[in-house]
């Protein structure tokens, strides 16, 4: 069975490192992007099974990335989760309106993260 591939988008390299470590430990493949613009470029050349994105990033933030992805035909149904320090209801509503399927607040617990990811993509 081919492993599912997750695109992780975050401008913090140390954070991406922990995210990749946690996801690869349970068998997912991970492709990293350094910000929203990089994430969008990578998404245009490959349809990932899941996108995990931060909100506050240079060049393109998470909400803008989500809206841009949802405008792509092959990303209408791909699950997208926000993984961000922001926990306010206002931001969550904006995320949901933009097209996010879920919201995780940093820092993440790897076990909990993997439970959520498994629930979303198996």
């Amino acid at each position, binding site marked *: 069975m081919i492993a599912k591939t997750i695109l992780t988008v*975050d401008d*913090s390299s*140390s*954070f991406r*490192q*922990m995210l990749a*470590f*946690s996801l690869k430990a349970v068998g997912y493949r991970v492709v990293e992007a350094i910000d929203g613009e990089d994430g969008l470029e990578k998404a245009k050349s490959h349809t990932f099974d899941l996108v995990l994105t931060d*909100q*506050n990033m240079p060049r393109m933030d998470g909400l803008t990335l989500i809206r841009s992805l949802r405008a792509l035909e092959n990303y209408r149904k791909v699950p997208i989760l926000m993984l*961000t*320090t*922001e*926990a306010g209801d206002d931001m*969550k509503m904006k995320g*949901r309106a933009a097209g*996010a*399927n*879920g*919201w*995780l*607040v*940093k*820092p*993440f*617990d*790897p*076990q*909990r*993260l993997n439970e*959520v990811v498994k*629930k*979303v993509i198996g």
Partner: protein
Amino acid sequence: MKNGLALQLERLLSGVSDHGVRHLAEVEADLAQTGALLGDAIEKLGASFLAIHAAARAQQEMVALLAADNAIAPEIIAKLQAMSGEMNQHVGIAVTNLQFHDLTSQLIGRVLQRVAGLQQVLAAFGSGTLAVPPESGDDQIAALINGINRKVAVRSKRLDSVLWKTVRQNRMESGEAELF
């Protein structure tokens, strides 16, 4: 000869500006150094964490091979499995805590932006920038002070509007997860 009050006002404003800008430059330098140290530390911590984990995994695989060969007594295998479980728990906790750099660098970045904004506000009435007309009477001085108050208020509000607080956590405990 300048009205005494006008001269004093000019000296006060340029003094506040010059001292403020100088001290803020030091704050900026210290914060940048703090950021650099934290960046260096997380890079090394991250690398060591992955190396330790890889070594522990390799050790566990060796133990599994020995167990498969019946080379280890069952009670020892049970103890090793319990230790492995404990180690996995600590790995999870370490992963959560190694995310500190992401949160702290966001906070430091915000402080640096605020410092830069304050430097701009103070520089607006620095030495040679704001000249108080020599024959200014009390009314003109009052008008000048009001003008400065308004400018400071506008710049302060502008600074607040771009410094959205993105990190409110005080502890490195895992955050909530919600599926819509």
